[in-house]
């Protein structure tokens, strides 16, 4: 069929794990926009949801770190985090090895990816699914871009990966949704947690909304680290979604919520039709 939905959202663990510490009005507005995104996702009637995440050492380590990896199993377990800490119960998430295999085969025409027949979710996927598929009734295809252990894949490759994923989605009969998860500027899991460069975030999101490839790819990792923190290496997920969707984006919600450690973001992007 084709790509039928594209969006991005935050995935910080504090969004669920420390919910009561946020200012209620802004927290509820943020959650409401997750709800709006869930409704838009449901309206698109996807058969599967590709989650492009920046995982956090749930599956891959520096002994064998793939730049890009795609899950290829009928189910995935997670989240790995302590249940009482993350406040999301461990469960089994359904996938489709068959669909993953077909997507991966097409992606591989353009980008070398690792595949994984075993995959444990962490907050990077579990937090968004907690809001987007609360009944856990949509098959997922987990995707990871290494944003943790440098050297990292260049931004231009994250773009190429998004394009390859789009070709793969368009080549299968199923209706495919894609959601990229990650932070923009943030300094997570450090004493700096809560530091947010709102100016940087708003500039990045303006480029993302325009789907301005040149502007999105013009950041260097040195500048990202300096201005937006190590958490902002995760812009790769937003960039892949932009490349996959091809249209203009809308940011439905953005607000720095320091106790959640990130500028909380919900956005969707028009899926531009491709010539056959």
């Amino acid at each position, binding site marked *: 069929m084709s790509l039928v939905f594209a969006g991005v959202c935050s995935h910080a663990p504090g969004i669920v*794990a420390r919910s009561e510490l946020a200012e209620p009005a802004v927290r509820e507005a943020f959650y409401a926009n997750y709800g709006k995104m869930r409704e838009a996702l449901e309206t698109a009637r996807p058969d599967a949801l590709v989650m492009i995440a920046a995982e*956090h050492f749930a599956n891959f*380590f*520096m002994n064998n770190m793939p730049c890009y990896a795609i899950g290829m199993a009928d189910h995935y377990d997670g989240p790995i985090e302590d249940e009482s800490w993350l406040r999301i119960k461990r469960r089994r998430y359904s996938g489709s090895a068959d669909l993953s295999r077909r997507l991966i085969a097409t992606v591989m025409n353009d980008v070398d990816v690792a595949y994984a027949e075993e995959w444990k979710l962490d907050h990077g996927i579990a937090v968004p699914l907690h809001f987007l598929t609360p009944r856990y009734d949509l098959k997922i295809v987990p995707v990871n871009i290494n944003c943790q252990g440098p050297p990292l894949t260049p931004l231009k490759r994250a773009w190429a990966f998004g394009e390859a994923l789009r070709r793969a989605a368009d080549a299968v009969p199923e209706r495919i949704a894609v959601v990229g998860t990650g932070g923009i500027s943030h*300094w997570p899991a450090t004493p*700096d947690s809560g530091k947010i460069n709102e100016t940087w975030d708003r500039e990045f999101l303006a480029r993302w909304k325009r789907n301005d490839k040149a502007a999105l790819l013009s950041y260097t990792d040195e500048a990202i680290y300096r201005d937006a923190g190590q958490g902002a290496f995760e812009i790769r997920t937003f960039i892949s979604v932009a490349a996959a969707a091809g249209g203009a984006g809308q940011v439905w919600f953005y607000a720095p919520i320091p106790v959640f450690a990130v500028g909380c973001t919900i956005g969707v992007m028009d899926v531009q039709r491709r010539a056959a």
Partner: protein
Amino acid sequence: MSLYYLQKLLYNMNRDPALQKRFANDLTLFDGYELTEEEREALTRGDIGLLYVLGVNGQILMHFAAFRGVAWKDYLEGMREGVRKYGPVRAGVYAMTSRTDEKVAGL
């Protein structure tokens, strides 16, 4: 290479509840990992501050603190205390840019 093995041990523990249980009373768990004495001590003491200063990736350290039951504010303060006691973060991309007396998000 030692930091590599320190992080690898934590990575393996973070994703395996059986290893987390063994960690409580069976330090043969460390066998096969090339660790310095300082790293072994940091691990056995569950010294968040020293592990942070040694350069353990924040995501790995956060998950370790989570299964150890360390509250979020204590985790943040543990890292600050580590920097006060042992000096700046020695490796990796999770260096601290705030002050040790600063509570960025009020915690």
